[in-house]
Structure formats: C-alpha cells, structure tokens
C-alpha cells in the first residue's frame, strides 16, 4: 500500500474530529505510516483462526 499523504491524514483526522495541521501534520503522517507499514509487513495466514484474548487466562500457561 502506498504511504498516506498529508492530505489523506488530514482527512482521516476530520473523520475522528481532530484538526491536524502543521507543524504536527507531517510528523503525524510519518508516525501513522510507520505503524501501518510495519503492521502490514506481518503476514501470518493462520491468524484467521486466532482468538485475540488480550490476557493470559488462568490455566493457559499449563
């Protein structure tokens, strides 16, 4: 996926009621692109079967 542009990030900000302008905008763009790129790089097909339980429930460690 191509990195988000500043304009796209500004539009996403509007969608969540945030007014993102410089001097923040370019840095927010770098930050969100870093997260999206890094997460997209992780490809594990078997995660479709994973139940995303956030904590270790009692007995899971056995």
């Amino acid at each position, binding site marked *: 996926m191509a*990195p988000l542009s500043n304009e796209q*990030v500004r539009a*996403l*900000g509007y969608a*969540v*009621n*945030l007014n*993102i302008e410089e*001097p*923040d905008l370019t*840095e*927010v763009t*770098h*930050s*969100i*692109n*870093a*997260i*999206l*790129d*890094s*997460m997209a*790089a*992780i490809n*594990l097909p*078997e*995660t479709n079967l*994973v*139940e*995303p*339980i*956030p*904590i*270790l429930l*009692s007995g*899971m*460690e056995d």
Partner: protein
Amino acid sequence: MLPEEIPLLSVVELANYIEKKEITPLETVRAYLSRIEKFDPKLNSYITVLADQAEQDAEIAGQEISNGNYRGPLHGVPVAVKDQIHSEGIRTTDASQIRTDFIPNEDATVLANLKAAGAILLGKLNMSEFALGDPISSAFGPAHNPWDLNRSPGTSSTGSGAATAGFLCATSLGEDTGGSIRGPAANCGLVGLRPTWGRVSRYGVDGACWSIDTIGPISRTVADCAITIGAIAGFDPKDKYTRQISVPDYYAGLTKDITGMKIGIVKELMDTNTMGTDPVVIAAINAALEVFAGLGAEIQEISLPLTKHTGAVVRTITHTERVSLHPEWLRERPQEFHHNTRVAFMAANLIPAQVYYKAQKLRAVVRDQVLNAFKEVDLLIQPTSSGPANLMNLEPGVRSLEQAKKALVEGGFRGLYSLSGAPALSIPCGFTSESGTDLPLAMQIAGRHFEEATVLRAAYAYEQATTWHNRHPSIE
C-alpha cells in the same frame, strides 16, 4: 559512618544498620534529602520532593523501631515512585501540564504496600509525559542519565532510573507497558523487574494500556529488587486481575544455585543486520552466557520469529488504548500536550480498527510462542536494548518515516514480555565506552508466568559472579 555515605548503601546494607539501630530513619532521610538538594538540579529526577513529610514519617518509623516494632527490610528506607502512581494528598502529574493540579484522595495499592512495609516516600519521580515517548516530553523538563548527563536515562520511567542510579533514593517503582522499567534500568545500569501481569496491583496507577501495564521495582541490586517486589506483589481486591497466587519470599530465595537450569538465548535479537543490535551488546550477552554455563546452566538457542515485529504490535495496541482513555483532552486541549505526545496521540487516533484487531491477534500468537519456549527452557535471555543509552535529542519531532520505523524496531527488544505478560528483568551485563564515557549494557532474563523467584535467583547468581553492579556513576 559519615551522613553522605548513607545513600551509597544498598537497601540490604541500610536495613541491617537500621534494624540494629546504628542508623536512624531520620538520619537516612536527611542524608538523602541533602543529596537530592546537591545533585537533582543536574539529574532532574524528581517532580515533587516531600522533604517535610518524609522527615515526619522517618521520625515515626524511628520510634516504632526503638519500641521493638521493626517491620522488615524496608522499614525506614527512603523510596520514590514514578509520578504516575497515585499518592494521597500529593499531586500526581503524569509529567503533563494537563495533570499538574490532580491530587488523588487515595494511595495506589503499590504505594500503600510500600508504606505498610515501613518505607518512607521521598517524592514523586519524573517520567515521559503520560508514560509515552522520549524524556523531553516531560512538562518538568527531561531527567538526565547519571552516567552521562547528555544521554537518555531510558523511557518512560526516566526519574526512577536517574534517581536510583544517582543514589537519590534507595529503591524506586516504575511502570512498564512497552518497556518503561526495563529501558531505564538498562540505560542507568540498574536492576529493573517487569513482573508478571497480574502479580502486582495496578489500582491507583494512571493507565496506559490496561492489559499490558505493570508496576515494578527499579533498584541497584538484585537483592534490593527482590525486597521491593516482595513488598508490592500479591492479590488486591481493588484490581480484579491480580491473581490469588501466594507470593514467595523473593529475598530468601536468592541462592546462587542455578545448576541444571535451562536457558534459551533468543537468537533474533542477537542480529546486527535485522535488529541493529550493537556488536558490543552481542559480545556482552555471549560473555554472560558463558558465566551462566560456568554456574551450571544449560544454554540453547531459541527462535521466536515474531520478535522483530513486537515493537509495532505493542505500539499499535498501547497507543490506541492510551488515547481512548481521555479522548477529550486531545480535542479540547491539544496545545497543553508536549509536541511529541500530541503527534503520537494524533497518529494513534488514526489507527484503523482492523490493524488494532490484527495486533491483538498477533499478541495471542506471540504469547503462545513464548509459552511454548518455556516448555523447552526455564529462562529466556536477550539484550534489553540494541545498544547503550543514546544521546538525548532535545529537539522535538519525528524527522522522517525511517526514524519512526526505527523506533518501532527498537521497541521489539522489550515487546515479547509486554505482549506475553511473562516476567522479565533487566540487569547490567557489561560496559562500553563512548566519547570517553563508560556506559552500561544490559540483558533481559525472562521466566514463566508468576515465576519471578526463578528470574531473580538466576539474576542474583549472575550478579554475584560478576562485578558490574559494583560500578557506579560519578555525577560531579
């Protein structure tokens, strides 16, 4: 003993003197306050110093001990806690302009437990704003690393690292979400323990991410760390996720015997090309493995393939959840955040739900991989960081996409245990010299869930077989 020598004692040594009534708690507190007055203008490790209250509490502790009511090794010992931990009647700021007027009406359970053990609260320690990002984000200015005032003390428990290494408190508490106990411990040459999630109450601690946050000690020695965690661990009815599992006497369990213990080295983090691990760190870890082998442990290589991605997964989960706690602050008071915090929070608001959900699934996969590793070995060892403490960049800002990605990779050094919830301890394992300054290097020792005692025992055996813990910074 000269008063200025008292802060240089370990908790174990100080407790011995106090129990024998050879040093009083009041003498101890005054010695620490004098040292804070002298050195904290350089370290900036405290946000709030409680001089009068600490002296009053020390007098009471002294009277109790004189009357034969000695409570144990923290009685009369001066401690300090990260300013994320609520303190009754004392402001708790999260190092943020937004929280400078917040005064809790109740102590966090961990602080109440320290006080019940007889500890004296010296003050509240500096941190990164809302426990995220670089030291410069603190509304009170950055804390400085005692080994080199120009370098980062590690984030986000910046003051806990700086004050403990600078002998401005006997032991301290930090809070670790993505590595905020282990990072400062590594940068400052200290022992920091992220306990098992559910071992220590989070009640009364301002949260970053409910399912990852932990509170634990940052101390100068393994024994001091064991004493401190022993005082705060255990079930708390105010935190329903603390487990009703008995808390062993961690200090009593510090034998040097690790014969037959199986230790796995996480191979993905011993890689300069993929993770950027400094060769001096790799050499230090390899030397540490030889020490463990010499002590009778069995060493084997372990592969945890998702390790390099854990920084991004932790960031995705923790930042999404952190900004969800008080979304109105970012919308209504954005200019009251430090620039770096505001940028991070804004970016976190834009993370798509499907990416967050993917991160939660990956967390479960990472946890399974860690649990499976612990079927083969008793402990996992790896570097705490890619290298020694960095020079602090005092200019705020995310300069490039590459810089932002690099920060996510660095988070991968501590992500395995943030995601799995297993206990992990950082301990010095060597030194390197940069620009004529000696800087500590560190490794993590991680264990099975709720087996902090095993982690501490191995750390103690290593510490006693080496001399790194005898080296201290000179602040002058």
